[in-house]
């Protein structure tokens, strides 16, 4: 029976052959993707700045300080603020309390604010930090997510004038923003970069705190500009027929709130600056929208793309007749469809500015030419490494029949890894290529262990060394029971040797793999490829390639 026929019956060898074939197909079909450092482009590493905190403060005290009030009383769902003298009618709106009612008395004014305590605290933080603040009611006590760079100390200093503080304890203040905020920021970036028509952008989140952006074919200065520059947002109002006129640009939008289902329909609330509110009122009156709101669509554009269009709401139309309004809501409809649309619109509105303060903590660029050079050099290095290893193996065993299977096994291990990378669509970066060469190193180590175990068996090396390789091979073959005499039965000696070899291999492979595990999360993803390719390479090698190699080399040694 030929070597090929015998081997084709062994399931380990068959599995190995199948996996290698699949890997080659996968590489051919999907192709390999290369990382930024091999393709050229630039990267930005952004830190999302923010913190979550519990806050101990009485809302009445906040209102008292904010309005300079003589007294604040809580009546059910609302607060009544008594302010001496005459109060500026826009003050409540400015502080973020829309819909406040002002009643003028003889020498004092009463302002009625409908709000819950959390809203008052949120408004206070927003106003004083000039940043977005979100309430997290999913935990008890409630926490406030502050989307800018704050410390416990700075927050306490801010709360001191209103007699508030962050309660003591580790849990009361944690740096970092929530999962939702991170996802939202990523979506905004994704949407923005995609809309700009940039190819091959990768936006990744690391540690829930960092966002990494890879921009192919762009230098780092341009990349910073693209990411940092807000989209061009414009609101227009329909005049006659299909004509429309400009109302305001993105800089007039002061803040955008998380979508919420108000009065049965989903909407995205947003706040305009004072001048913008006046401009909006003027445009609504001039276009005639306040009289016949259903004929006058309000449209929003982002970089000339229409992202929202709906008639002016009747209630708003009638209130605009009298006074400008700063708080508005873009309503998109009810139900699940409305919810999805609202989220989309929210992201578009947000493209003017990211939901959370970011700081560029690291960046860089590699040119395409240099990337190609690196790629070429790494391929050459890999081949030289393989040849050097082959030379070492030949030097030791003086047998082509051992060198060839060893080098091909090592080579096919690389093919299997590349196959997985192609299938998964993962990028190969410079570090991953270095990882491949490392796997060649450990892989051959283990093939050497198998070969030596099979050839030397249980004999002490001193006596074995005196015999020639051929004698040892013949002996191994006999013990292996894979020679001409006994094809079907595997001898116990052979199995014992293979299993001993695999004890060593498994131990070594497991240590290499676990030592690499922490690297997966280190360096903001810079070493993820390196660690992953080593871990997967070691597993593939140990589970698929090396058992098959054990069989093949056993047969080869036997058919002498």
């Amino acid at each position: 029976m030929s070597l090929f026929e015998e081997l084709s019956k062994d399931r380990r060898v068959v599995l190995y052959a199948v996996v290698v074939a699949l890997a080659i197909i996968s590489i051919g079909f999907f192709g390999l993707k290369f990382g930024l450092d091999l393709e050229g482009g630039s990267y930005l590493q952004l830190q999302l700045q923010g913190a979550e905190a519990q806050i101990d403060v009485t809302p009445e005290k906040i209102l008292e300080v904010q309005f300079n009030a003589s007294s604040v009383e809580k009546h059910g769902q609302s607060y009544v603020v008594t302010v001496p003298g005459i109060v500026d009618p826009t003050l409540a709106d400015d502080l973020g309390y829309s819909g406040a009612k002002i009643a003028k008395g003889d020498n004092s004014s009463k302002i009625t604010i409908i709000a819950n305590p959390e809203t008052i605290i949120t408004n206070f933080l927003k106003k004083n930090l000039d940043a977005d603040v979100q309430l997290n009611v999913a935990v008890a006590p409630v926490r406030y997510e502050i989307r800018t760079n704050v410390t416990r100390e700075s927050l306490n200093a801010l709360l001191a004038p209103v007699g508030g503080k962050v309660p003591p304890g580790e849990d009361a203040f944690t740096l970092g923003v929530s999962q939702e905020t991170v996802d939202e920021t990523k979506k905004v970036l994704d949407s923005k970069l995609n809309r700009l028509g940039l190819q091959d952008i990768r936006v990744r989140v690391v540690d829930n705190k960092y966002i990494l952006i890879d921009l192919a074919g762009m230098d780092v200065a341009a990349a910073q500009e693209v990411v940092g520059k807000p989209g061009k947002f414009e609101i227009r109002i329909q005049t006659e027929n299909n004509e429309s006129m400009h109302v305001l640009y993105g800089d007039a939008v002061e803040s955008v709130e998380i979508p919420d289902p108000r009065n049965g329909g989903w909407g995205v609330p947003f706040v305009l600056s004072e001048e913008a509110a006046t401009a909006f009122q003027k445009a609504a009156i001039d276009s005639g929208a306040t009289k016949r709101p259903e004929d006058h669509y309000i449209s929003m554009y982002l970089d000339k793309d229409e992202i929202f269009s709906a008639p002016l709401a009747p209630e708003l139309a009638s209130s605009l007749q009298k006074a400008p309004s700063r708080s508005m809501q873009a309503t998109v409809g009810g139900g699940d469809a409305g919810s999805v649309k609202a989220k989309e619109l929210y992201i578009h509105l947000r493209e003017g500015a990211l939901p959370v303060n970011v700081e560029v903590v690291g960046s860089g660029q590699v040119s395409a030419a240099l990337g190609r050079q690196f790629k070429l050099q790494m391929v050459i290095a890999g081949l030289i490494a393989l040849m050097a290893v082959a030379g070492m193996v030949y030097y030791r065993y003086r047998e082509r029949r051992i060198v060839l299977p060893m080098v091909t096994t090592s080579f096919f291990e690389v093919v299997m890894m590349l196959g997985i990378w192609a299938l998964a669509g993962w990028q190969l970066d410079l570090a991953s290529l270095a990882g491949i060469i490392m796997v060649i190193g450990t892989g051959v180590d283990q093939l050497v262990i198998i070969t030596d175990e099979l050839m030397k068996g249980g004999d002490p090396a001193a006596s074995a060394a005196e015999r020639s390789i051929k004698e040892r091979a013949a002996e191994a073959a006999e013990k292996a029971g894979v020679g001409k005499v006994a094809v079907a039965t595997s001898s116990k000696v052979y199995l014992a040797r293979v299993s001993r070899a695999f004890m060593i291999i498994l131990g070594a492979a497991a240590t290499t793999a676990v030592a690499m595990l922490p690297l997966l999360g280190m360096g903001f993803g810079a070493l993820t490829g390196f660690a992953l390719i080593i871990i997967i390479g070691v597993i593939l090698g140990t589970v698929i390639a090396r058992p098959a190699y054990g069989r093949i080399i056993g047969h080869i040694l036997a058919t002498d």
Partner: protein
Amino acid sequence: MELEDIVSKYPPKLIMLVPIAIIILALISLGATYLATGSPVKLGIEFTGGTLVTVPSTESEENVTAEFASYPLVDIRNVGSRYMLQFGPMSESQYTQLAKLANANFDSPEIRHSGPIYSKELQVQVIRYLPLSFLLMAIVVFLVFREPMISLLVVICAIADILIAAASMNLTGVQLSLGTVAALLMLIGYSVDTDILLSMRVLKRKGSVDEKIKGAMGTGLMMTGTTIAAVFSLIIMSNFLYLIVPSFTRMDIIADMSTVLIFGLAADIFNTWVTNAQGLRWYLNRPKKAAVRGQKR
């Protein structure tokens, strides 16, 4: 072979003084650097924060330096028809200007910039993850052998390898970068390989300890030999070839990694076949009950 003689010629306790002395020397080197700089090895720009710009240029060093005169240039090096410039910390807007300047005046420069937040976070990560790697490795080793003393020897050898490799970084001027951290962790894998082979052979086979150690040595030296051959080709490719073939370029990350690995592998030969082997000789050949248990397995 001379190396094999060492295995059995001298009493283990006497030979063990050599690795102990070497580990102490490594610790002195790391300690001295720590006292001088505040960290046991020299930190690269990823850990200190700063900017690295590599520009292709055939002009003189003075001319290139002059181009970047208004930025905090710390170091300039010629790396084969390219200049590598290292800058100290600067403001974000200054960095943007620098990036624009480099892109305008040179054909496709390479830029790497780490801000203070990034580098601080990276330092925290290394301090957190490096011991974690060791811990995981130690757990696996203990699971494999289930013999505290044998496992401890393996772990000690891995630690010794890393310490020596780290000390060698101070000698060769290789800085700690993400690449070299990866290389140090990789050494754990390479180091434990041969130690496991040695301990398995000694524990699971019949015969005298010295004979078994010599038997394992053939396989183990071959293993480390092939790895050194692979790493050596990386060193040549990343670090020296550009000196001969001008179109090739230096690959910093690979050059640094392979330098650390080659020293670590050399240390591994020594630690496996002296430290670990002598430890096993001493442990298994010591008189009375415990030795019998060792032989039985």
